[in-house]
């Protein structure tokens, strides 16, 4: 069209601002919610011990949301993840407690088991062409039932300490001792400050900024459209401050939790897969227009199958983390987790019709849910009112999304 050619620059710049507004609007909402609860709880929310708890409580939701994002982007849904968490936890507990199998092989077997369960469901969705809602609704019932049958209403535990440390452990503090030897007790932040964790936070923030600058330079050197410098600089400054702030808080308690490292590594991996790898690109194409993707030579069935197998493996990992955290397998472990995971994806900007959604959004979405859970619990708000609030927040987030799309 003629008029498009004329409006090039202004339109492009406007659309970049708008896209960014959506992305950072979500981050802004999270910060506002955190500030609100920090105020309401009288400073408890951001207390080092609570931040640590918050991460421990939400890690498995975030981990599963990464897999759920790929499923939803591909145009499907998985309702069975909560049951898989319970089932894999039960199997792992039985192997460790009843059969005395060492924890490391149990971890491997559990991940494979989760993957196989996901693959089985993926087979019915991708190749037998049964709607994913139905297949995974069935899976949800089957695996919840099997969990109950295995555990027979009992709690199975406790587990070896090494296994527990997956969830309740923290990274070892290697640098504080030498630092203390040099500076003595006059060391900054007191004698119990975990300097290793702080240093990792520092390095992380540095890498984040370096990567951002490299990318921005490269994009602006080419014909690629870039975001305005003010936005870019402000954004990176905020990220760096956040990273440093949280490492400080965590370091002043017990340091970085092991699950945070697992979660962080997986988040980076899935960001890379969705943004830079051909398989990620193809999943987005599949969800955007399945027929067009197929006619472009993409094996859509295999892709759907893989997204489910991947989801299963991540649910298996979550099952281990949950079991390790509770130090026992219980029949109700993972109950209704699927709802938190799916809600995290939609709050994070994924589209129910497929083809749209970002890893960063989903992680933030999961923490929006997590902070609300945590904050309301501290305030002593009843569990049923918590459901009401979370439901309304989910609806509001998606409403804003849809409204922006229709009126943008």
């Amino acid at each position: 069209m003629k008029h498009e050619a004329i409006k090039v620059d202004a339109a492009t710049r406007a659309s970049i601002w708008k896209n960014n507004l959506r992305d950072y609007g979500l981050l802004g909402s999270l910060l506002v919610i955190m500030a609100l609860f920090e105020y309401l709880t009288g400073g408890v929310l951001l207390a080092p011990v609570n931040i640590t708890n918050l991460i421990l409580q939400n890690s498995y939701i975030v981990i599963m949301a990464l897999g759920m994002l790929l499923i939803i982007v591909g145009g499907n849904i998985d309702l069975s993840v909560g049951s898989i968490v319970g089932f894999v936890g039960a199997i792992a507990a039985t192997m460790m407690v009843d059969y005395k199998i060492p924890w490391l092989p149990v971890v491997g077997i559990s991940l494979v088991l989760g993957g196989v369960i996901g693959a089985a469901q993926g087979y019915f969705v991708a190749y037998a062409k049964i709607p994913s809602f139905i297949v995974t609704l069935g899976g949800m019932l089957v695996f919840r039932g099997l969990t109950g049958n295995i555990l027979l209403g009992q709690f199975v535990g406790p587990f070896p300490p090494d296994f527990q440390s997956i969830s309740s452990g923290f990274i070892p503090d290697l640098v504080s001792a030498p630092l203390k030897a040099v500076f003595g007790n006059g060391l900054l932040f007191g004698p119990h400050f975990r300097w290793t964790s702080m240093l990792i936070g520092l390095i992380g923030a540095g890498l984040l900024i370096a990567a951002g600058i490299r990318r921005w330079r490269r994009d602006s050197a080419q014909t690629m459209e870039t975001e305005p410098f003010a936005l870019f600089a402000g954004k990176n400054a905020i990220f760096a401050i956040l990273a440093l702030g949280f490492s400080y808080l965590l370091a002043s308690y017990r340091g970085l939790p092991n699950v945070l490292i697992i979660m962080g590594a997986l988040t980076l991996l899935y960001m890379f897969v969705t943004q830079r790898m051909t398989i990620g690109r193809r999943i987005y194409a599949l969800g955007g227009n399945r027929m067009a993707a197929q006619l472009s030579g993409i094996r859509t069935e295999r892709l759907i199958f893989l997204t489910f197998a991947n989801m299963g493996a991540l649910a298996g990992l979550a099952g281990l983390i949950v079991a390790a955290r509770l130090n026992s397998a219980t029949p109700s472990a993972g109950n209704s987790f699927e709802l938190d995971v799916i809600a995290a994806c939609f709050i994070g900007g994924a589209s129910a019709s497929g083809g749209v959604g970002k890893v960063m959004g989903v992680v933030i979405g999961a923490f929006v849910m997590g902070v609300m859970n945590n904050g309301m619990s501290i305030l002593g708000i009843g569990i049923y009112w918590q459901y009401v609030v979370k439901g309304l927040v989910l609806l509001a987030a998606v409403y804003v999304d849809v409204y922006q799309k229709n009126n943008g």
Partner: protein
Amino acid sequence: MTAILEMRGISKSFPGVKALRNVNLAVEAGEIHAICGENGAGKSTLMKVLSGVYPHGSYEGDIVYQGATRQFSDISDSEKLGIIIIHQELALVPLLSIAENIFLGHEPATFGVIDWDAAFSRTRELLAKVGLKESPNALITNLGVGKQQLVEIAKALAKKVKLLILDEPTASLNESDSAALLKLLLEFKQQGIASILISHKLNEFAGVADAITVMRDGTTVETIDISTGPISEARIIKSMVGREMSERYPPRRPQIGERLFEISNWRVEHPLHAGREVIKGVSLHVNRGEIVGIAGLMGSGRTELAMSVFGRAYGRQVTGRAFMQGREIDLSSIQHAVRNGLAYVTEDRKSLGLILGEDIKSNITLAHLSGVSRAGVIDERREAIVAEQYRTKLNIRSSGILQKTLNLSGGNQQKVVLSKWLFADPQVLILDEPTRGIDVGAKYEIYTIINELAASGKGVIVISSEMPELLGICDRLYVMNEGRLIDEMPAAQASAEKIMAAIMRQHGSQQ
């Protein structure tokens, strides 16, 4: 004669874009008024203003209809007064019957209980009026596009239409269905129903229209009265594009080489009805540097043939042999077809060709991601360069490679789909209706691309329902009818009459 409709000084803006500038349009009572113009000239926007899709207050100017100034706030306002618009993309519910579709939204009912007898008898009357011999119970999904179009018109008649607006009604119809539709419009004219006909097919409406209004860049250029005598196509085209288009087809000097691709005894069964052959033993070939056309009526099996060849994307029990440069190749999946050098550009670019929510860049590289990646990791820089190259080379009018394909005009969308397959670097391209719904200027550009492909030694197979197009760009033509190739001729010796005669001859021999 008095004007049934006058649109005076209509202007309409979208954020940052002036879509209509001071448009004036007058339609006389009982006339057929054609509106033509390139894509993006503002025809559809104008009709949306008229029908109330864009409510009063969102535009400037006046709409005077049946002697009074009207302020429509939505479509139902304009429909109440008999202004009915039939869109290019038909708005029928596929799994409901004809009768249900015709009365959808205004069912003959008392207290919500539908009077089916009344609905059926009324439907029968309406179907008789539009000349459609189908049961009111027939499901829309089982009808061809031509018949669906007639159902839409019957639906308009049910609403007591006084001004019928047809947006590209013949774009997806074959020649005989188009002719029937235009004849229907003439009958309506006798009954005093005025029509506005938006069309790209100049030769068509010239036969039936009383007046032609030409639009360009959001404004009306001129209205030509042709009730008194015919007018030359060249004259209208000049008015549309604002310049003289001496040639509809770019010049070409074919250099035809050895045999490149061949299928023999290709047979395909219907995907749902086992045992029903849709393609009945087709053999064809294309040489290097050659443009081969497949002519035929809608429903003759051309798309089905193309899609079944392209990795069995259509049908079941596909049998037959395929050869590329004399070597037998495996076309059992789309991946195999692509790997063996085939590409298929679909006739339905919106639902089968593009990921509309994605940008130009991702669409262009989608079929050949390995060309911009290493070990499964996309080199974003190379991808951007590749996309920019095609955007420039094919003159894809857009704000940049990051623009979503959803917001492109039809011609530019088609260029994106073409880019996708050009980047995959196939040996043979099958182009299915490559210029459907595309304006004259963009058509010329697409023909030029096709010529360049042939010149670079590729083989091109073009499927088109527009015979002048096939005659204009092809070297050799196949004629297809009812799943068989019934004739083959060099384009130089072909004519529209000769092709139709071949089809008719076969129909005759079967009866």
